[in-house]
């Protein structure tokens, strides 16, 4: 069995290729001048630069968080390059025809064709390559509906008031160490605004790709769903296979105004490092949404990549009757470490939250759920249900649960359940008796274990997630 696990773990990371794109990359290092240069490159307004610099000054005073159950060597922030962009992007191609074909090929290879005719109808994509957004598709069609979907650097020029009003409103500058760093050095990301009463006519999607060596990717996503609107947003990510660790510190802010709904789905497949834990992405991400009255935010994540994950997509349920959901599948193998979960802060009356977390650990990995459910004194009649299940495959891995439950309202009801188990011999026996080979059997059992989460994913993503899990688990049982 061990042999087979080893074999499975030695499998190739399919998105691990490097694209041969000429890039303009900053020298490694971080100081105020680097931030000024980033801001200048983007032609940002003065207030944005000031905002970045104040975040940077705060960051210098902050300490790296150590409470997560992850272990990695200290990051040398001076050895990272904070800006890298394909040279061909310098003149800002006006249409898809002008985009460097090598870039288009990269996305095609990843299964994300950017030529609109080739795409699955109904998904608009913003493709972010290292520090810049390469292409945003279907913009005209979206504009017809009044939906703004563009790189955040562009939004700063075209819609400065909207950006100024909402940026940092959900995740404050000094929220945490990595969020502060992101505020100082973020380079690009997506901006979405859905006008009042509008149902976004198609799924929106951002695909993040790290290509350059020794760079960090610091992107920022801001989604505003105005009153009564609805949007479904997908996010995917990959990186080349390298021996060095690379840092990815993103911030995502969601604002759901009264009666609005935002569905945010992620399939995270950053390079996880090799079987000995060499290389891979450090994925230190802050994601948070605020719900106003009757609004709903739903986070769904499938986490299979990254060597270290530190990620807690959260909901602030500020408005009465607002709803927060978190559905997560986190799979770790090799030497991967994941510390992920959510925070549900109930402020308004009759707010509801549901947390379903499925952790699967294999190889020598460690997988932790860390969550907070807080009922504030005003959260009259609030309700939470949490279920955290862990599945262990092999006897060298770890599965952990750290749920914080804080209640200050007697009428609020909180339920938390957690179980840990392995793929049982009985389950395997039953499947094998019916002619399934062991790998198929485990894959089926694991898929069943994750079903509650997969059914929350948009169809295209559910298929991709299912495949990812299958590849990851290949041969991990004997």
């Amino acid at each position, binding site marked *: 069995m061990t042999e087979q696990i080893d074999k499975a773990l030695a499998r190739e990371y399919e998105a691990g290729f490097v694209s041969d794109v000429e890039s303009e990359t900053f020298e490694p290092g971080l100081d105020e001048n680097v931030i000024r240069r980033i801001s200048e490159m983007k032609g940002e307004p003065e207030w944005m630069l000031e905002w970045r610099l104040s975040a940077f000054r705060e960051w210098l005073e902050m300490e790296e968080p150590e*409470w997560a*159950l992850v272990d990695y060597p200290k990051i040398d922030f001076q050895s990272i390059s904070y800006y890298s962009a394909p040279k061909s992007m310098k003149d800002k191609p006006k249409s898809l025809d002008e985009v460097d074909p090598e870039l288009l090929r990269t996305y095609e290879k990843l299964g994300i064709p950017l030529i609109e005719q080739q795409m699955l109808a109904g998904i608009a994509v913003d493709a972010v390559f290292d520090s810049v957004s390469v292409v945003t598709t279907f913009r005209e069609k979206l504009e017809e509906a009044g939906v703004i979907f563009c790189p955040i650097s562009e939004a700063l020029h075209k819609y400065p008031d909207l950006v100024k009003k909402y940026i940092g409103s959900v995740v404050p500058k000094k929220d945490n160490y990595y969020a502060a760093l992101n505020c100082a050095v973020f380079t690009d990301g997506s901006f979405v605004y859905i006008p009042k009463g509008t149902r976004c006519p198609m799924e929106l999607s951002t695909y993040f790709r790290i290509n350059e060596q020794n760079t960090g990717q610091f992107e920022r996503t801001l989604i505003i769903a105005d009153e009564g609107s609805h949007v479904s947003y997908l996010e995917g990510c990959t990186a080349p296979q390298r021996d060095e660790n690379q840092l990815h510190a993103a911030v995502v802010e969601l604002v759901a105004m009264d009666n609005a709904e935002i569905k945010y789905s992620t399939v995270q497949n950053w390079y996880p490092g090799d079987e000995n834990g060499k290389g891979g992405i450090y994925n230190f991400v802050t994601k948070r949404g605020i719900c106003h009255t009757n609004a709903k935010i739903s986070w769904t994540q499938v986490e299979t990549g990254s060597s270290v994950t530190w990620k807690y997509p959260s909901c602030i349920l500020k408005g009465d009757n607002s709803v927060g959901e978190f559905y997560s599948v986190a799979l770790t193998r090799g030497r991967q470490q994941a510390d992920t979960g959510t925070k549900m802060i109930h402020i308004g009356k009759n707010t509801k939250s549901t947390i379903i977390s499925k952790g699967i650990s294999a190889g020598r990995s460690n997988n932790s759920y860390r969550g907070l459910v807080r*009922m504030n*004194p005003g959260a009259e009649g609030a309700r939470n249900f949490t279920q955290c299940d*862990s599945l*262990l*495959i*092999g*006897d*060298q*891995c*770890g*599965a*952990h*649960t*750290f*749920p*914080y*439950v*804080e*209640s*200050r*309202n*007697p*009428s*609020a*009801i*909180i*339920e*938390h*359940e*957690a*179980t*840990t*188990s*392995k793929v049982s011999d009985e389950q395997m026996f039953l499947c094998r008796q019916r002619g399934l080979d062991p790998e198929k059997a485990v894959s089926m059992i694991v898929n069943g274990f994750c079903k509650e989460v997969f059914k929350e994913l948009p169809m295209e993503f559910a298929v991709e997630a299912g495949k990812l899990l299958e590849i990851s688990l290949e041969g991990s049982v004997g």
Partner: protein
Amino acid sequence: MSEWLESAITRAQGINDWLTPKRAHALDLLANTKWPTRKTEAWRYTPLRPVERTQAKVMSDKFNLLPVAITDLSAIEVVFANGQFDQAQLAQTLPEGLSIALGGDLNSAQQADALNAFSTIKPERHIFGLINDALAQDVVVVSVAEGVEIAQPVRISTLLSQGSESHTRVQVVLGAGSKLTVIEDVQAQGDSLNTAFVEYDIAAKAHLEHYRFALQTGSNVAIGGSHFNLHDHAKMHSTIIGFGSELSRLDTDIIHAGEFADAKLNAMYLLDGKELFDLHATVEHAMPNGKTEENVRCIVADRARAIFNGRIHIHRDAQKTLAELNNRNLLLSDKAEINTKPELEIYADDVKCAHGATVAQIDKQALYYLQTRGVSRSKAQVMLNFGFINELIDLMPNAALAEWVRPIIRERFAQMEVK
């Protein structure tokens, strides 16, 4: 570092007795330990201001403090009055196979054993455990010989008079196949501060029945720990009842150091007024085939604050472990607060582990039902609260103790103001 800790360290440096090597070690560790703040995970919800501001002083007088009588119990009394072991309260003749003595009075071989065993079960991470190591005034060693079953319970009472400070320590050693019941009980008058730690070493096939009562209320600081080491096929059954005070903190550690050990822990706490009670229960499954079952129930009224941290840690070798933690909380007032964190840390795959936690208020339908039967609302509330806790009282193996504690709890509920 707080002024209080500095003065405690200075006092400890002046003590010179048989425990000095261990005290010196604790002082070394303390020198490198940060005084807990809100950012210290283990003290996240429990501010230490009451300790920092305490006026309590170590007293040399025992003031004739006596433990409260428990009907039909007939226990062997181990009494600490203001931190000092009261030899006069201990029975002249002990049952055969049981020995109880002050560490200082042991012969040199026994003392060497006691010194070796001292502070090996209590983990070093407890800052007040280290303070207790350094400051413990009297250390009592209780031991049961191999294969002996002691029918009479041993009751360890920590008594404090007004404004008194005490640091007490007991080591309990159960020989292979032996059986013992131990009751730990703190009774403190106002404005006092105490740390009371007990370490239990439960040898193969031995069986410990354990109770810890923290029924003091009011302006006390009571910090303590009960730490258990279970060898092959050892068994323990523990019941903890707490009422909270200005600051009550209890750490329990159950260590499965042998295979096929079996641990049960039932804890309940009932808080009122501005009381705070903080229970940190840790279970370490270091060896295979262990079994743990924990039930923690809590009722919080008025402005009280309850904190529970239940950690189950299954080590790599602890295959075939069964561990379960059930935590249920009732919040009775909109000024009260419950913070609970059931943790699982699992490194073995062939285990069955689960935890569940709920926070809610009294079932409105049950309340309504009782009212329709002519029971007043306040009486109905007392009945339902009592029922919630009584389920665990019913599981207490010692009938005399259960009978003694039931009316005390009922009285407590009657006093709790339900808003």
